């Protein structure tokens, strides 16, 4: 289906030349050395050694791998990627974290995928074609016939059914993706997915790396099962942490949740081979990542805060990619009077909505950040236009505060030790505090470590909360959780029945199949939220990818942060 694009042969040749060139010079070529000392960025550790060059002349020892991460010059053979780890497992069915997603995309293929950074249109991948019935309850996929696993066995419909049903029954972080959906192998190359309810978002869910396709026989042999009791009976995780069982562009060389996870190119990959033969994913604190990429100790870093990018942009040896992350940072005011008489008052909502200085807050999120007019991020279907964003109106806010009796004090909780896109919650909360003070609202900050803060958040006990929502899949249906009775709505003390008009829209949109009809409904949903809701969407922060220019082109991917397979292409 997805044929090899015409430019591919050229890229292949370049990749080969580079690889050969690097090999020809021995583990670390003499030229590399010269370049390194010129730019004064010798990867040290060798510095207190006599001299790496002398050592090479002896030719006796192999140089440390470390030296391969040379400065500007020929493309490095190993891609060193810094990420502050939230890695738990290499089992695709069990992972649902940012780092796990990056690894998952590289190791496992999915039925459908997104081409480049376009997350609005899923395209065939392991499936060569698919069709849905009219009410979006039955989806039929025809598989490619040229895909093989590492052990030589061909991809079959059973592998797909096993992998997808296993995810549902594992009852893990990503199981909700398959909620009410059953996969069945009809024949060797045909799979049917049946949903209990109309699920128009399913094609946008399927590219999620949690739904990566495993080699069913191999995984079954190693303790895997897709049965109802998989949550307890499945013991394949340990196996999958030592060896990958997918058809993806990379295979697992070393898995470690705390220091380094290493991927090696899959020699039998069915698609276009990746540019880099080896990828080292390192666990590095965000603060040190900037130093690492500037001194060429890393090729790509993923967690830089917007504030750190300014200076890097001027560096000719760096490629700084800045885009709006699809993560939404939002505030809420608890609607439950038992939690607070103040925050549950509609006047308070009005005061906050028109009292917040959105631009001053946005400033903290970096140049690539965007203000988000509704709760749905800008790259998804149904996002509101900029002009619909609530505008600051100090008089209106002050009047609302006066109606509350003036001088109100509320508590705002946020996770103190959590960072996303290099951005901490602390400064944002401080800005919120400062801008609300201008309209007469005293905000007391009550940060807590994430385990504790999540507990009060989930229990719906926070007066005000500052949190973020990362999209589970790039479809607006994911944002219905913010409505009355949705899981985030409940955390804000906003149960079903609180806003019948809004809930009617939510109900209607959940069962509408056609995107053209869904779009205006989602817009209506957000307009009503902006009028009466308890949520105050703030911004989508800058997501950054900073790479050494010798790495080749890199892209930020809104669904899985970075597509390692595409780096350098």
């Amino acid at each position, binding site marked *: 289906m997805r044929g090899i694009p015409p430019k591919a042969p050229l890229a292949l040749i370049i990749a080969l030349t580079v690889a050969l060139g690097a090999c020809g010079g021995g583990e670390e070529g003499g030229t590399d050395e010269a370049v390194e000392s010129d730019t*004064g960025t010798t*990867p040290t550790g060798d510095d207190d050694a006599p001299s790496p060059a002398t050592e090479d002349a002896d030719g006796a020892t192999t140089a440390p791998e470390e030296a391969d991460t040379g400065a500007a010059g020929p493309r490095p053979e190993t891609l060193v990627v810094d990420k502050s780890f939230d890695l738990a497992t290499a089992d695709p069915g069990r992972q649902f974290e940012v780092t796990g997603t990056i690894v998952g995309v590289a190791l496992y293929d999915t039925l459908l995928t997104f081409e480049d950074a376009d997350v609005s249109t899923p395209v065939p991948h392991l499936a060569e074609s698919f069709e849905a019935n009219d009410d979006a309850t039955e989806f039929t996929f025809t598989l490619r016939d040229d895909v093989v696993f590492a052990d030589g066995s061909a991809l079959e419909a059973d592998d797909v059914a096993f992998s997808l049903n296993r995810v549902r029954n594992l009852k893990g972080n990503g199981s909700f993706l398959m909620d009410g959906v059953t996969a069945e192998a009809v024949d060797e190359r045909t799979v049917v997915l049946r949903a209990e309810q109309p699920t128009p978002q399913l094609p946008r869910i399927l590219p999620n790396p949690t739904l990566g396709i495993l080699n069913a026989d191999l995984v079954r042999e190693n303790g895997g099962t897709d049965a109802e009791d998989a949550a307890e009976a499945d013991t394949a995780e340990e196996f999958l942490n030592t060896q990958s069982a997918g058809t993806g562009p990379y295979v697992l060389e070393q898995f470690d949740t705390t*220091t380094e996870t290493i991927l090696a190119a899959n020699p039998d990959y069915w698609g276009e081979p990746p540019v880099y033969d080896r990828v080292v994913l390192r666990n590095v604190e965000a603060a040190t990542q900037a130093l690492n990429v500037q001194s060429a*100790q890393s090729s790509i870093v993923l967690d830089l805060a917007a504030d750190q990018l300014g200076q890097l942009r001027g560096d000719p040896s760096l490629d700084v990619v800045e885009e709006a992350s699809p993560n939404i940072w939002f505030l809420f005011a608890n609607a439950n009077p038992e939690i607070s008489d103040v925050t549950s008052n509609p006047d308070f909502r009005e005061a906050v909505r028109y009292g917040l200085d959105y631009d001053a807050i946005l400033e903290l999120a970096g140049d690539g950040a965007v203000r988000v007019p509704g709760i749905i991020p800008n790259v998804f279907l149904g996002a509101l236009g900029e002009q619909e964003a609530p505008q600051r109106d100090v008089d209106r806010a002050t009047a609302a505060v006066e109606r509350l009796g003036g001088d109100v004090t509320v508590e705002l909780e946020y996770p103190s030790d959590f960072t996303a896109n290099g951005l901490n919650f602390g400064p944002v909360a401080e800005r919120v505090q400062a801008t609300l003070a201008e309209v007469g609202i005293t905000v007391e900050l009550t940060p807590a470590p994430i385990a504790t803060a*999540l507990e*009060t958040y989930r229990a719906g006990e926070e007066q005000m909360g500052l949190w973020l929502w990362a999209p589970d899949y790039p479809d607006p249906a994911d944002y219905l959780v913010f409505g009355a009775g949705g899981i985030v709505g409940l955390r804000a003390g906003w149960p079903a029945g609180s806003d019948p008009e809004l809930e009617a829209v939510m109900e209607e949109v959940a069962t509408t199949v056609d995107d053209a009809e869904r779009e205006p409904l989602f817009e209506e949903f957000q307009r009503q939220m902006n009028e009466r809701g308890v949520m105050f969407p703030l911004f989508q922060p800058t997501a950054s990818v900073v790479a050494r220019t010798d790495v080749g082109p890199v892209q930020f991917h809104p669904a899985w942060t970075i597509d390692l397979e595409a780096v350098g292409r």
Partner: protein
Amino acid sequence: MLSRFVARRFAAAVALAFGVVLVAFLLTNLVPGDPAAANLGQRAIEDPDAVAAFRRQYGLDQPLPVQFGRYLTNLLTGDLGRSQQTNRPVRTDLAEFGPASAELALTATAISLVLGIGLGTLAAVRRDGPIDQALRVVSLGGVSVPLFWLALIALYLLSFRLSLFPGAGRLGPGAPRPPSVTGMYTVDAALAGDWATFRSALGHVLLPAMVLAAYTIGLLTRFTRSSVLEVLGNDYVRAAHAKGLPVRLVVRRHVMRAALVPIITVVGTAFASLLAGTVLVEQIFSWPGIGSYAYRSATTLDLPAIMGVSLFVALVYIFVNFVVDVLYGVIDPRIRAS
């Protein structure tokens, strides 16, 4: 008599270790917060099935006494449970992070022993002279500087600006680890004869170790100085001096031995606290040691890891105290007699 002494000591150690584990268990359960919340995703946490599966997997669905009892029984078989954070057996984690911290602590202690005792003795011998005064300011500076600040400055200046040291971590990216014997990369690489890895590992450990040593050097210098001075005031040293022996010889032969006893206490305590993990420096240097492990498990309420770390630290404390006592006996036989 000796065996009774050892037996009593052992019993005390076991009691202490038990107490530490019990306190860790109680503390963690007193803290409001749910490990499931910290480990499950934004969706799964609202799914009762997923929460139940998580609790079952980690035994959190059992009543507290049962959980604790089960922990102790497993402990007897050497099973410390599974960390929710790293998703590995806690024992594996400790076996990896413990040696990493030990490598750092040993290097820092070695640096501070050499410099601290040397400078301290020098200060004592040159008592009240300009050298003594200068050393006094320097050593007090060492114990006064905030280590997290020093670590940041060292990383920025020495590693990033001047490229004198490699950056964070234990080895270069993707570098193969030496075959594990002790878990300390420098030692393992040396044992394997892999000198390239050895140099890389040493380069990586040196900077954080030097930062850590700033404090212990200061401490040891001050301490050695006063211990040596005290001994210098003793009659037998004066007598030796009166006999016309040169100062250097007097110091080496008579003074050091006596002064060493209190110094060992300091070194022992300092080493124990380094080995128990120096959260701040490990965090800044992305050093995968006990300190950062303890910090991460504490913030995520990772109960098995917290108990494992506590047990580890208690054992270190017990062990170091034991070694210090033995060394006392070796250096100063009078103590053994009493």
